[in-house]
């Protein structure tokens, strides 16, 4: 469904991505692992058009979308929940969700999607009229994921959903990610530092190191891989 080939990105003179190739199959959860600064977020943001690629290409459902403007890529069906949540803190929860459906005109379907978001995250419904900035970190993450779902994407990209959230909520959110994948058949690209949890829910995994692809394979195999266990799962 999504093919990234030899993707390169430079920030000024510094090469952040030195040729990353990944591909994502429809209906799967694919995780992108790596340490701080490895280029996970850059990869995701280049796919979504927030960052411009200096080389390589991104193809979504057969269409070349490399360096297309962000709003076109969203319209094509790729949504992201950005790192650090980035919800609209002065807009209410409902308005945040409405902004997610910004490009859509189908009122009935929008309401349906909103109801689905509430069924997954009932807490959002309780906080409907509250400004987004007053939510807890975990609730903001739920809102960010729901807001991305409101664009009715075919590919959902989640950037570090576990970042700065109480451990108990991290577990809930990961369960919900699985639920979204199962219920909607949603293809998900999950960028995570918490390799342990990510490998539990993902079907396929890529590990990147300083802009290179280091390892790739089925999530279960990667979880057993000696190098990965040493480097990312804290085992000696």
């Amino acid at each position, binding site marked *: 469904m999504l093919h990234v080939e030899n993707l390169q990105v430079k920030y000024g003179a510094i090469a952040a991505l030195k040729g990353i190739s990944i591909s994502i199959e429809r209906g799967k959860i694919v995780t992108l692992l790596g340490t701080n600064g490895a280029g996970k977020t850059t990869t995701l943001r280049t796919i979504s058009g927030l960052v411009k690629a200096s080389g390589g290409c991104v193809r979504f459902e057969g269409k070349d979308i490399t360096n297309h403007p962000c709003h076109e890529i969203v*319209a094509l069906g790729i949504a992201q929940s950005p790192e650090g949540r980035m919800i609209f803190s*002065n807009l209410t929860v409902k308005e945040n969700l409405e902004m997610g459906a910004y490009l859509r005109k189908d009122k009935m379907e929008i309401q349906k999607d909103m109801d689905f978001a509430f069924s997954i995250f009932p807490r959002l419904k309780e906080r409907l009229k509250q400004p987004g900035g007053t939510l807890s970190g975990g609730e903001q993450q739920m809102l960010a994921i729901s807001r991305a779902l409101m664009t009715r994407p075919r590919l959902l990209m989640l950037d570090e959903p576990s970042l700065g959230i109480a451990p108990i909520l991290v577990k809930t959110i990961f369960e919900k990610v699985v639920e979204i994948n199962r219920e909607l058949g949603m293809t998900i690209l999950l960028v995570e530092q918490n390799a342990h949890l990510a490998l539990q829910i993902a079907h396929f995994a890529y590990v990147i190191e300083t802009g290179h692809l280091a390892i790739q394979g089925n999530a279960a195999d990667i979880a057993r891989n000696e190098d990965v266990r040493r480097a990312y799962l804290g085992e000696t």
Partner: protein
Amino acid sequence: MKSNSSKLYLLAAIMVSLLVSFFQDQINPYYFQIVIYIGINIILATSLNLINGFAGQFSLGHAGFMSIGAYTAAVASSMLHVSSGNPTGFLVLPVALLLGGAVAALAGLLVGIPTLRLKGDYLAITTLGFGEIIRVVIQNLNFLGGPRGFIGIPKLTNFFWVFSVVSIVVFVISNLINSTYGKGFLAVRDDEIAAQAMGINTTKYKVVAFITGAFIAGIAGGLYAHFVSYINPQQFSFIKSIEIVVMVVVGGMGSTAGVIFAAVVLTILPEALRTVAQYRMVIYSLLLVIIMITRPQGLFGKRFNLGRFFSALRKLRVSS
């Protein structure tokens, strides 16, 4: 239904301003002048609020757009005046105002496209520089009177024109911000990256905010020119830009009601303080400092909006 009732308010406001304009000769000219300045400042402040408050782009060049509108309208009306030989023709002023607004909007587009890649302080400095460039250019254009100023502009601005424009501007901006399209401005302000990730064309929003703000400022400039009948570049220096920014900040960035209130208070205040003569500006500045310390979010909070205020009023009426 809500938009119907706000249309009714708009119509009523225009009718009232028409009614008052019949009696404007009986108002003390000094007070009348202050009232007109209040109206013009409301137009300037609410339009800057669209750029600074709602879209979150810090512009310091509003006086530049105002001066473009003022000069364009002045040229237009003196030409129409000569050709029609009828200085009081009813259509002269609106045509001049629209022309002034259009040219200011064009300037807004020209400035907006290259500068809106910049953020915060950088954008503020560039727009400040732009405002000064406009002033210097006008100062050196002889056919506009250069530093001596442009004289003999027909005195066409009256109570009706100023307050009709005030009503229309407030109506349009309030409705814009409450619409789904308008919420995009707030999204761009709150988080640009997230807004982009939702499929919002953030550049377009910023440019639209800039052009609309410039257009309205241009109209305010035209009204001003046709009220004072003499304009010179010094009237549109960056001090004027700062004055407008202060109204927006004191009223509360992103609160239309707050900004209107601040425009009224900050226009009256320097006049009311004339009784204390030389301490006038000291007290004025001190009050600004005190307001900012006690109400850093502005006199009215960010989330205060007119629509909600009116619906709250209606609920009160129903319940009592």
